[in-house]
């Protein structure tokens, strides 16, 4: 019944036997111990669980861990290297792009993808590009500012 999977997470290879129904988000949080990505809904609307699989932002609550076999995953924990924050993380901090912080790891991962695909997004492009991520605290204005600031920095 269980399947053996091997997944590279934040640069480290992990091998586990998992039930096919184990969601990737539960695998990351409870088997591997990476509790940065969060769970906010069960209908893949909120985006709190967003991680990157093979370079693409995905909702890890809408993927089974077995589907990640052989793939490369980046979570919020893997974003800052050597204690240095990623420019998107830095910008969220500086622009006050978060309050309770629950949506933030997913929001940052989605923002990172957005900037990678569109290095100088307009406000409207940012707002539409983040439609897969809900935030109940900020009203999004500072998040938009953070994405703009991060894009400027990453393009510089």
């Amino acid at each position: 019944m269980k399947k053996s999977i091997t997944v590279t997470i934040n640069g480290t290879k992990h091998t586990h036997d998992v039930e096919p129904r184990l969601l990737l988000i539960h695998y990351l949080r409870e088997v591997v111990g990476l509790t940065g990505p969060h769970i906010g809904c069960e209908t893949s609307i909120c985006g709190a669980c967003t991680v990157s699989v093979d370079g693409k932002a995905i909702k890890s609550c809408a993927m089974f861990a077995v589907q990640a076999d052989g793939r490369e995953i980046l979570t919020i924990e893997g974003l800052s290297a050597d204690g240095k924050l990623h420019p998107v993380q830095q910008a969220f901090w500086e622009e006050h792009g978060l309050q309770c912080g629950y949506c933030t790891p997913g929001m940052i991962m989605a923002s990172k993808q957005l900037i990678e695909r569109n290095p100088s997004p307009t406000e409207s492009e940012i707002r539409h590009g983040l439609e897969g991520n809900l935030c109940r605290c900020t009203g999004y204005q500072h998040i938009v500012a953070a994405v703009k600031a991060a894009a400027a920095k990453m393009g510089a």
Partner: protein
Amino acid sequence: MIAQNFDYLTPVSLAEAFDLLNDPGAKVMAGGMSLIPMMKLRLAAPERVVDLRHVPGLNKIQQDGAMLRIGAMTTHHELESTPLVRAACPLLAQAAAAIGDVQVRNVGTIGGSIAHADPSADYPAALQALEAEIRIAHRGGERTVLAKDFFQDTFTTALEPNELIVEISVPLEAKCTGASYQKMLQPASGFAIVGIAARVSMDGGKVSMVRVGVTGLGGSSYRAANVEALLVGSEGSAADIGKAAAVVAEGIDANSDIHASAEYRAHLARVYTARALSAAIARAEAQ
């Protein structure tokens, strides 16, 4: 949040996939963007999930004469971002870009979406307007079904349990043709309350070809032949468009839910048909 247990199967060839699909408890998974949430809510509880991810050759996008052939496992993101699709079949790229959100588009596939046949999905409108051909394979053979015959009713398609969609073919847009997909989205889920896909060719100041596909209004997507008949041959003026768009909901038993009544949906269908036609004509004329 937690699905019932199932066996996870990953065929590496179509033949193997067909073997696995002989089992009545098996369910095909393409991107899983519709299936997995339903499994988590336990509305779906397949005993076996057959993931097509490792079946080779299902995610190619290639030009073949006057047609664009798209593998069933092509993701929405690939369709919205591939230069060939954007240039040769912008309507499909627009419809792909209108689906869900970035994360969903990164994983969801065109084959999975149309096999699911959600009455509010975005692709069906475009595929109806494009008169897409859907190539369906089964053990020992295949057949091609036109979009209008493929989408039958709510969650109901021409696909048999032991068949798989392998490819969707759409025409390369001809010269002087413009297209537009216009959608009123439901603010919570992002699904279409109504979505209208329009393609128009202009020739000598007259509408020489028009195709209109509708999603979200009734139990299934459809091609609004009555709208097309009224518009073709006209100059495509605002008045012509208005007259044609006015009939888009005729004879359709419109859906009603907490997000939009049947009456409002039918009205929106007329408004968005006019908008999609106007945009398509403007694009056709700009060429």
